């Protein structure tokens, strides 16, 4: 995990009014969830957005601990460093309760991101265990780190987004969201997905990480890592489950990740950015979107929207 001293050159962010406004908004939403629902949960994916969300939750409820557990949907294909961060920092150091959900049936059937199409893989190893955990624990609100800027179908997502008994999102029939007066009432079995980071952008997430000195999985920072170039994506060979074609040979490259997910489908970028401050600088000159390296969004038109309708986060 990396936590760094703040560079004096970045002190101007300490006065960032827009970050404080976003922070207040998110804290307000998190507190509303805790007050209005009986059994909320925070969907924790170990990435930077989740880390910001967890940090905001700790601030929102201080001096209490956040009054809900974290739920990690473990596809079993996460980077090893992510699991280590989850167990040592979040569980041990912060003392948070982390529920881990794995689709054992999918594991037994050998569903993996290499041999199965991305939509099948995502459905079996992410969406199904998510839905099954939400139903089994009877969570009535699931807090997630989704941002509207991230992806086209999210631009229309409410902050408190209603889901029916089958976890389905109906974009045609959303509740109006007026002022800060969230309609939080749901019937038994129905639930709410809540997105406290809706109005944040990737750059603001990073500025806030800098401002608040939030610990992150080291994969976000540049380092020599073994990668292969597969269909234009730099894929890190994180363990020996990864099958290599005859021509492929992992080589050490200075890379980092802009988003974290399952290692075989998450592309790295070449970078020299080793600190949060350098990442913020890098973001200012990059001309590629955050999800350019994520295969899952591109496999078909409106892919994310369809996944969301089926219950994907």
């Amino acid at each position, binding site marked *: 995990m990396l936590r760094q001293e703040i560079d004096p050159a970045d002190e101007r962010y300490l006065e960032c009014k827009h970050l404080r406004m976003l922070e207040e908004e998110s804290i307000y939403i998190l507190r509303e969830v805790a007050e209005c629902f009986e059994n909320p949960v925070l969907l924790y994916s170990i990435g930077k957005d989740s880390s910001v969300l967890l940090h905001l939750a700790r*601030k929102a409820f201080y001096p209490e601990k956040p009054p809900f557990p974290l739920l990690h949907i473990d596809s079993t294909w996460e980077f090893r460093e992510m699991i280590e961060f989850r167990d040592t920092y979040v569980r041990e150091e912060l003392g948070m309760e982390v529920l881990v959900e794995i689709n054992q049936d999918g594991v037994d059937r050998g569903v993996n991101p290499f041999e199965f199409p991305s939509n099948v893989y995502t459905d079996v190893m992410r969406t199904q265990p998510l839905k099954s955990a939400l139903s089994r624990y009877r969570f009535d609100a699931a807090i997630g780190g989704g941002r509207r800027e991230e992806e086209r179908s999210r631009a229309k997502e409410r902050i408190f987004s209603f889901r029916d008994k089958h976890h389905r999102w109906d974009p045609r029939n959303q509740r109006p969201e007026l002022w800060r007066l969230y309609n939080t009432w749901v019937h038994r079995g129905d639930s709410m997905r809540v997105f406290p980071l809706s109005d944040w952008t990737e750059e*603001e997430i990073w500025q806030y990480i800098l401002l608040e000195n939030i610990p992150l999985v080291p994969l976000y920072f540049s380092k020599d890592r073994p990668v292969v170039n597969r269909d234009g994506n730099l894929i890190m060979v994180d363990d020996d489950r990864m099958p290599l074609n005859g021509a492929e040979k992992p080589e050490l490259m200075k890379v980092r990740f802009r988003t974290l997910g399952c290692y075989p489908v998450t592309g790295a970028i070449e970078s020299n950015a080793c600190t949060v401050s350098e990442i913020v600088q890098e973001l200012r000159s990059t001309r590629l979107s955050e999800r350019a390296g994520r295969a899952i969004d591109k496999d078909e038109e409106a892919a994310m929207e369809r996944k969301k309708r089926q219950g994907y986060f």
Partner: protein
Amino acid sequence: MITHKTRAADIDLRHDNPPSGILRLLTCGSVDDGKSTLIGRLLLETGAVYEDQLQSLQLETKRHGTTELLIDPALLVDGLEDERAQGITIDVAYRYVRSPRRKVIIADSPGHEQYTRNMVTAASRSDVALILVDARNGIVQQTKRHAIIASLLGIKRFILAINKMDLIDEKQRVYEAIAHSFEEFSRTLDEVETIAIPLSGLRGDNVCHRSSEMSWYEGPTLLEALESAPDSQCDQGDHFRFPIQRVVRPNSDFRGVSGTIVSGSICVNDPIMVLPQGTRSAIRSIVTMEGEKLSGCTGQAVTITLEDEIDLARGDWIVSPDNESHVSQNVVAMLVWMSRDELDVGRTYILRCVTKKTMAEVESVESVIDIETGSDEQATSLRLNEIGRCRIMLHEPIVHDHYSVTRDTGAFILVDKVSYETVAAGIILPPEEAKQKIGSGNESSVHSGSSSRNIPLGSQGARLEHDSVTVLVSGDDGQAHVDIAQKLATDLANVGFHVVVVDESLIGEGIAEAFGFSSLEGRKRLVRNLQVAHVLNQFGIISLVPVEMADLRRNENALQMLDGEKYMIIETDLSKTDSKVIPITERLSAGEVPQPSNHEKDKCPLRGFTAVSCGAESLHHVIDEIANRVWK
């Protein structure tokens, strides 16, 4: 062929200094006015679009584009949503623009038939409304409709984007004519400030870059206008307001309340008041994860602990003692009806105002706004997308502001208690006439600690249309005379008098509890109540003091503190079905009132005062008598 502006310029624009805050922008206008193109242009030129997104955009422009441009800015907005195919055009989308000085959140509301409900959703949090006009058509009905709704939702700053300037001749004359015509129309709206900008979304003229073809225009570009507009946090007022969101009690040593400071600021040791209870205390500490703070200000989400262990719950407010918020159980509000089911007058709905939840009924619909003209029409109910003025009765008092003062604390939603559908958005209005302000017990009243202190006593009474009087409503042991006092107060308030019942419900909970003399014996209680009545008289308010006859007889000299001209005693008698006003001397001689013994007579003469004998159902003579005395 016109090409997209260079990328180098975009990078310069993107980020050099952190922005000063967040501006929420409502955009409206019909599709043909070029709204998508304008928003797309704004996104492109502020660098909100990445290279990989631009590449797919170029492909889409070749396929679907309606322009000769390399990239059709409209596709950035329309094409992204794939809206037509999904049938979700009715909804609001949120987009983000980042200029060197500002973050702008655009609530993009399409101007389709379901305009009202969606525009209200988008406008409810917006600071500025961008209203698009096609320069070739000028101000049309749709422009006015959008402006009326935006203004109703409290938006005070408008940007009139006069678009498609590239398509017209005599640019300056057309611009001036349209700007003037909107100015004329906007005088009918509430305190609206408008900047009219001539621009072309397609070519980018006056969007982020000044147009060389309109050198006569000296105002700001669209981006400059967005950068300089004040955000909503600037308008909230100075009074400390802190609606309680959560009570925090991790262990027996810590008891705090969490919330966001809506307005004003607070320091440790500052005195505070809790509403609706009216209890007072002081700030002990301001707690955050970074440690205790000495002060807090508008927009901060903090946790506060108080000096005293007083009763606090979600929905209560902590305020400064000089606060101007209201506590009431009845409100007059504009309702925007959002359900397909018509408003059911008298049905109970869930009401949420800030963090308070209660039940409420719409008592009556008084009028509906004709959204085409802005005028009021008579109505008895509301249908989908209609906006009307209604009287709402709540099941318990809530703390609130008038919407025109503070939007976040002057608004509410109504939710159907069976389907949980959001059926209405509500905007709390000031009561139309002063007479409704102070009334019978649960009418709207201002909780104000000291705001009147510096006004000379008596001068306020002079402003009212009536004089004041203290009416002692006496009776034998029991509750009957108290009930009659309440009923009398209601009837008097209904005909327009300013009236307060001075009894334990007014004084007991607030003063007596705080200072521990809730069980005052009869005389002290009478003296105290009469003193309060006397003060209220000096402010022009009619005071009704329920009092037991026996107490009054024993303590007649307590009446000396009242101005002799300004009090009357009425005697209640439930057996009476009619009321009669008889001077007590006449009644004594008629043998109606039992003669007190000589001993009692010396102690308690009660002579010379008007007495009214009445039952609960026969107060009209009493009201006439009071009216005769106070009418100027």
